[in-house]
């Protein structure tokens, strides 16, 4: 072996510092009694208390949760089907178009997607009378479209790494493809399904730009509420909200990865 270079680990740690310092600052200052960022006014949880009584944020959070659960579930179904098509169907007419359509939302600027979806909803309403107005339904349709691509990426990589021998054995024993998929494939890719659902849930819960385009009056999601209050100026309540999100995400991710590594260890 050559000597271990020192430069790379140093750069890596600087990179982590860059990624985590702003989050640390946010959490620390959420407990700051002073309204000013630069002044430490002593430890206080008053911003959390204030947040817990802020009807606007609570209503928006409840709406966002419902949108995110519905969208993530829809995106999980469509994204998983798309991944199965891409990994298992081989070449077919339209594959190129299909694969481009599945992948494009990953990188498409959100302003373009938001505007395009809004104009589509308006055009559909003029022609078909559906969807009526804009709100929960249009938010969900837009978020499903946005999140499907991410679910497809996660499920696809798991499907293509998967050992096919169990599926083939079941097929040889005469099981129908649909049954094989339900009984063998789905349980084997379950971790990826859970990961994909969580990713879609998070993306939906976090989306501002597309939501701003496709939502209607009276339907304000949490990120839209947060965005408009940030634009009015820095508010310590947002620090508290951000810290709660960081805490929730850390718990979910750490639990998920613990479950995953435990599952893999048992299988080995």
């Amino acid at each position, binding site marked *: 072996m050559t000597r271990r270079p020192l430069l790379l680990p140093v750069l890596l740690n600087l990179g982590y510092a860059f990624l*985590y310092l702003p*989050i640390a600052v946010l959490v620390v200052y959420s407990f700051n009694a002073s309204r000013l960022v630069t002044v430490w006014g002593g430890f206080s949880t008053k911003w959390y208390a204030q947040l817990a009584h802020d009807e606007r944020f609570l209503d928006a959070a409840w709406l966002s949760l419902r949108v995110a659960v519905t969208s993530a579930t829809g995106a999980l179904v469509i994204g998983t089907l798309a991944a199965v098509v891409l990994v298992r169907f081989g070449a077919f007419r339209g594959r190129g178009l299909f694969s481009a*359509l599945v992948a494009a939302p990953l990188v498409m*600027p959100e302003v*373009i997607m938001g505007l395009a979806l809004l104009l589509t909803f308006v055009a559909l309403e003029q022609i078909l009378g559906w969807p009526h107005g804009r709100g929960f339904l249009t938010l969900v349709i837009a978020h499903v479209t946005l999140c499907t691509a991410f679910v497809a990426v996660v499920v696809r990589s798991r499907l293509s790494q998967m050992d096919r021998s169990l599926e083939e054995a079941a097929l040889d024993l005469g099981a129908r493809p649909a049954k094989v998929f339900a009984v063998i494939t789905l349980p084997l890719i379950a971790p990826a399904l859970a990961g994909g659902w969580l990713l879609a849930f998070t993306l939906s819960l976090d989306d501002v*730009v597309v939501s701003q385009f496709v939502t209607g009056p009276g339907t304000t999601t949490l990120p839209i509420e947060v965005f408009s209050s*940030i634009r009015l100026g*820095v508010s310590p309540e947002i620090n508290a909200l951000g810290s709660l999100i960081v805490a929730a995400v850390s718990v979910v991710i750490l639990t998920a990865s613990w479950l995953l590594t435990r599952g893999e260890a048992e299988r080995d």
Partner: protein
Amino acid sequence: MTAGRAKLDWGRRAVLTLPFVWLLAFFLLPFIIVAAISLAESRVGIPPYVPLFDWTQGGVWPASHASLDNFVQLFQDDLYVDAYLHSLSVAGISTAICLLIGYPMALAIARAAPARRGPLLMLVVLPFWTSFLIRVYAWMGILKDEGLLNSLLQGLGLIDQPLVILNTDLAIYIGIVYSYLPFMILPLYATLERQDPALLEAAADLGARPWRAFLSVTLPLSLPGIVAGTLVVFIPAVGEYVIPDLLGGSGSNMLGKALWDVFAMSRDWPTAAALAVAMLAALVLPLGLLNRLQRRLEPAEEGA
């Protein structure tokens, strides 16, 4: 598996139908509609838009109101031309910084002991799971004139006057690099991790110093990852709206923000649609390249 470009049997068609129809209806169709409406007559304050075709006049063909006027207007308006060029340059510079920070990180993770790679990569991805909006907001508190960075530097006696960073392009670069760094690192890591360490050993045996080996072996072999990471950051950054709005201030003139303002403030939907089409025109080439690259990276599936 079915051979060649054979037609799919009905069971497979059933699986294909839902995702295909959904993506056609809510991803492809919207782009066609945007393109169509970008040709409609621009009217400030009267959404949605004047219909493209007028069927009330009678006759076989409807009277057409479609024209390229919106695009002509965009090109004649310095504000939009400036926004266009500014967006491309901000996205380009941010992507370059992202690559410079992300490459050593990806390389360090790829060279770490196999058991540590997973957790290290997880640390890169973890911030992405927390709210994007809130992370951008955290930077506002850090970069403000009376913010954390300035009071730290002043406290250390390094500067007398606060550095003005918030509401400048520098703040936008920081915001974009910070938000998109994981997207740069993941594809870089994927190509770097696959490299055979024996190649570097061979280079060392032949007398190459580590730097030389990096430049002639590691770097060229990671080119697909560099291209993929660059595109994945550059394309969405061109249309970025939240970061310029919060960190770049009112003076920052970028396409995504211009599009939102035209849409929400002037309520001029056809011009907003024309802006979207113009933005897409700049992205067609990078998008096509990314699509080709992705297809080349998935040979194992194509043969299935």
